[in-house]
């Protein structure tokens, strides 16, 4: 027998034996299928964010240790980018845990699918930022510790050099002013494209970032009267106006039809002069630019500045065999000090003023207070309908097509038609 083959075989058997030992610890110790009523599992999207995970874990630990604990909570963390695929896999196998983390706009879809059960919390949610409470058909299904806010970032020195005023919450830029600002910034000749709107973004970024512009023009993703049709809202005159404006930004050379992979880094490397992104870039840009950083509200395109509302939120699944304990834990976790500790770790906007008071950057006069104002004043919820995940993909594709040069009316008509067909084929997404 060939010696080499024997050698390979021997090595391989050794490797197999090693794994068999490894597999001795067999099934994942924290499998959700084995959960009993005294131990319930909670899924979070915080894997890879050690600070956020630690903050969540410490709330869980203190709850587990408290005398009133109705069950022991166990945390399982998943990476955010692929969290949805994990959840979909578990859901299709009927294997969801008791408490889940869920991106706000998807809550109605889950509620409709009867994955989620309405929340019955002892905590008072009336003072929360409205965008941190997810409701559908009169019931509350999920609640978040905080939100994020879209903003414009620039260097004050650049704005001054171009002779452009710093936009403020009292006086945001109008459409004309924005046009003027871009023209002047471009004239500085410092950048290939003065504006970076993150047009290389994909997935949920597209509706999150660009549908608020549509809403500021007076259009919308769907007619919110009864959530049955996008016709007229998504492809009406206002929507076409939005599409032409958006495409125009690229045509005039103000922004790239496809920006770089990381628009914040490009902004810091001085490859753009005006950055449109979420509040999560706040700390990083301030650290790099210091006082030169200007954080400005989004543009008023007619109906006032708008930004997308709702971030990650917590819900309880309907398959949970100890809902009582799950609700109890969620109420416990919503105490201001708990909210504050998680928010500090995530860099989000705290859901309540009480929590904000505990975080210096968000307390009155804090550097990040402005984001809280944006959220309070401008946030528009993405349509609270089970059709949202479908709407989001259609809107995202229409936006990309329009940027790539598609006829605005045609692209929007196509999206509206697809959305209406989807709603119809799902029986109007009635309960």
């Amino acid at each position, binding site marked *: 027998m060939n010696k080499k083959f024997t050698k390979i075989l021997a090595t391989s058997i050794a490797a197999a034996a090693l794994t068999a030992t*490894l597999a001795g610890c067999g099934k994942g110790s*924290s499998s959700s299928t084995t959960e009993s009523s005294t131990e319930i599992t909670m899924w979070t999207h915080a894997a*890879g964010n*050690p600070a956020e995970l630690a903050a969540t874990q410490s709330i869980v630990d203190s709850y587990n240790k408290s005398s009133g604990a109705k069950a022991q909570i166990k945390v399982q963390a998943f990476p*955010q980018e692929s969290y949805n695929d*994990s959840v979909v896999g*578990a859901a299709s196998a009927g294997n969801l845990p008791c408490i889940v983390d869920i991106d706000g706009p998807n809550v109605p879809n889950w509620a409709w699918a009867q994955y989620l059960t309405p929340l019955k919390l002892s905590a008072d949610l009336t003072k929360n930022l409205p965008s941190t409470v997810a409701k559908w058909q009169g019931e509350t299904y999920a609640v978040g510790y905080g939100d994020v806010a879209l903003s414009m970032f620039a260097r004050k020195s650049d704005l001054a050099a171009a002779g452009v005023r710093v936009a403020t919450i009292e006086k945001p830029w109008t459409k004309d002013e924005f046009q003027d600002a871009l023209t002047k910034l471009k004239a500085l000749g410092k950048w290939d494209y003065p504006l970076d709107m993150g047009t290389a973004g994909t997935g949920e970024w597209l509706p999150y970032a660009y549908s608020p512009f549509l809403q500021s023009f007076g259009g919308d993703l769907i007619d919110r009267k009864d959530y049955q049709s996008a016709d007229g809202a998504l492809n009406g005159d206002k929507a076409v106006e939005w599409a032409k404006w958006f495409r125009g930004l690229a045509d005039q050379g103000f922004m790239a039809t496809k920006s770089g992979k990381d628009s914040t880094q490009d902004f810091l490397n001085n490859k753009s002069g005006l950055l449109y992104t*979420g509040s999560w870039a706040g700390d990083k840009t301030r650290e790099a630019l210091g006082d030169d950083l200007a954080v400005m509200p989004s543009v008023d395109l007619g109906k006032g500045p708008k930004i997308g509302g709702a971030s990650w939120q917590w819900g309880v699944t309907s398959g949970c065999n100890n809902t009582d304990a799950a609700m109890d834990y969620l109420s416990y976790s919503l105490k201001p000090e708990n909210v504050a500790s998680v928010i500090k770790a995530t860099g989000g906007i705290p859901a309540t003023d009480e929590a904000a008071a505990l975080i210096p950057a968000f307390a009155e006069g804090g550097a990040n207070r402005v984001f809280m104002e944006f959220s309070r004043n401008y946030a528009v919820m993405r349509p609270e309908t089970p059709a949202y995940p479908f709407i989001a993909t259609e809107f995202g594709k229409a936006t990309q097509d329009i940027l790539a040069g598609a006829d605005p009316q045609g692209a929007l008509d196509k999206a509206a038609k697809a959305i209406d067909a989807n709603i119809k084929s799902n029986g109007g997404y009635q309960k």
Partner: protein
Amino acid sequence: MNNQLLLRSAGTMLVRILFAVVAAFPIVFMLISSLKPDQQIFGDMSSVAAFLPIGNISFDNYAAVFDRVPAARFMINSIGVSAVTVVLGIFINSLCAFALSRMEVRGKRIVFSAILATLIVPFQTLALPLVWWVNQLPYFELDGFSLEFSKGWLDTYQVQIIPFLANAFSIYLYHQYFESIPKELDEAARIDGAGWFKIYRQVVMPLAGPATATVAILTFLPAWNSYLWPLMVVQSEELRPVMIGIQYFFQLNVSWGEVMAYASLITVPVVILFIAFQKSFINSIASSGVKG
């Protein structure tokens, strides 16, 4: 060596080097970027600086990787899962190919065609029904001396291994390779009284070194790179494979330097494996088999 030959071999070498440069630059980029801070990676991106270790060079990214991801644990999981998949896969698939290629089994044409047809089914379309299906399968666990029985394979090592053991591509590759090994070797062994399994093990497999090396490398890759599947069927962090780790870096603010460092780390085992196995490409029929 005359001049013409010398010129020709120099020319061949030049072509080799050209190919090598084209093939290697992303790896160079990855390694170099893993030593730089994020802002510099993007700053250097549109010039040759992206491939040069200049500027602010450090191993900070590597240190940070281990704070974010249980990288060692993931690495052990992936090595284990991939090794078992490769070893058992080599055995199962070569055995099947052996019967299909060298034995006169009734109905083998249909079986072979059916096996090849599975090459066409893209995994993405299979994934969801498969998740449901593996959760219906029985699960046995040896607890001391008693056999414990439960339902569902989710959140285990086996769910990452068993569905991928049988592989049409490996069977096909072995089959085509076996076809090129002279069949009178089997005949000779049969005359000496060898059974079929003995022929497989002692005559054919030792000659199939290059095929085995190829199958080993080519089944190791998807096992090592598996991503969508573990995402859907593995919930416990301690069972996750390396590719899921990459997702840990994609937060609202992406740490690109750490992505590069982690990607560099997880590429190393594959390269080592390749170097180890590719030596068997030398070990061919041409040098040993036919005469032996």
